[in-house]
């Protein structure tokens, strides 16, 4: 019995010791470092988060500031990555980006209509990174003059190249206006014809009564 208690005590101490010396870590896996995306469209990229170390880790995933203007959504929020999660079973995290209209069009009407795009501007690229960081900062143990707590992160590079789509002048506004005017005149004429037929019928019926 005494031996069992001592063994248990030693086992417990060993457990505490191992827990203290093993730090949680972070891992990231990616297949794409750049993407060519047409302007004003959507693209989603997936990253894998893993933790091959023997302690669960609490992580935060974020995009660098330079990519924030083009982020639309992030579908998974990872908090805990279990210990011994290796790269071949990494947790997928999907980021979706909505590229803005970044290339200036040549517009003939009010700077908004009858536009064409010649794609004369150079290719626009949003460069940044996907960062995975441990959430909890290591606490500074008490020690007189204090010291520095520490925090770890890793990052994968990402460049979003926004593709300009060339197109001829868009006359659809003119087409729709001409079409609507013609349709209005046509409807007005039909209405007028019907009206004149009705009034003729009324006149005829009055004449026949008289």
């Amino acid at each position, binding site marked *: 019995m005494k031996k069992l208690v001592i063994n248990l005590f030693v086992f417990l101490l060993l457990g505490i010791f191992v827990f203290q010396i093993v730090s949680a*870590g972070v891992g990231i896996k990616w*297949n794409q470092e750049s993407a060519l995306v047409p302007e004003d469209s959507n693209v989603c990229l997936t990253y894998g988060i*893993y933790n091959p170390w023997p302690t669960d880790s609490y992580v935060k995933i974020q995009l660098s500031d330079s990519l924030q203007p083009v982020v639309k959504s992030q579908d998974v929020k990872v908090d805990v990555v279990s210990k011994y999660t290796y790269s071949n079973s990494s947790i997928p995290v999907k980021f979706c980006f909505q590229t803005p209209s970044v290339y200036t069009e040549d517009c003939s009407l009010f700077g908004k209509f009858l536009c064409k795009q010649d794609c004369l501007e150079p290719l626009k690229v949003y460069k940044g990174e996907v960062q995975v960081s441990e959430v909890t900062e290591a606490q500074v143990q008490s020690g007189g003059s204090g010291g520095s*707590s520490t925090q*770890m992160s890793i990052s994968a590079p990402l460049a979003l190249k926004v593709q300009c789509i060339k197109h001829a002048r868009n006359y659809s506004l003119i*087409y729709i206006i001409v*079409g609507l005017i013609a349709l209005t*005149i*046509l409807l007005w004429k039909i209405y007028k014809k019907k009206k004149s037929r009705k009034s003729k019928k009324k006149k005829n019926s009055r004449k026949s009564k008289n």
Partner: protein
Amino acid sequence: MKKQKGLSENFDKILVFVVALSFFLFFFQTFALTGHATEGTTVSNVSISKYLAVSFGANLSSGIQFGTVNTLPATNINATHNYDGASSGTTYTIDVSTDGNTNVDFCTKANTGLTDPALDVIGLGNETYSADNSTTVSIPALANETSLTTGYVKAQSFTQPGNSSYWRFWLDIPAAQPSGDYNNTVYFKGVVSGLSC
């Protein structure tokens, strides 16, 4: 009278034609048609994936401590684990996992200078580090010490999967520094070798 009626009917026909043409052109321009390639193609594909994982060694995960300082000014105060490893090497390490296929460079920064609760600050220029891919009593060398900054700076390059990056930290405290417990946060970031921070 007949001629006028005929003209009116023709005008109506033209109007119908104009309406139809306008809407056709509108839809054609809005939903432009594309041609189909007639040549045969086959796809050649390769997928390259990169992955890396890093972890603090035990002592670096507990923070960087400089102990109690009794005499000022003090120069190059060693962090507590600068020389407590085998052959007096450092035990401040960042480990790169074997489950990775990329060499790692490390960047570092601090949020601010060491600051006490009364907001007295030991300037960031006084907290220095040196890093290397190996450690002995003289490596990482004090001669290579670099001051921490508030922006990420490349501190150490080319740590291979399965290896560790070794760090030492030093602190200078000016003579006029008020007593107190000073703290800040030091950040470490692993990036693919060769890329900027």
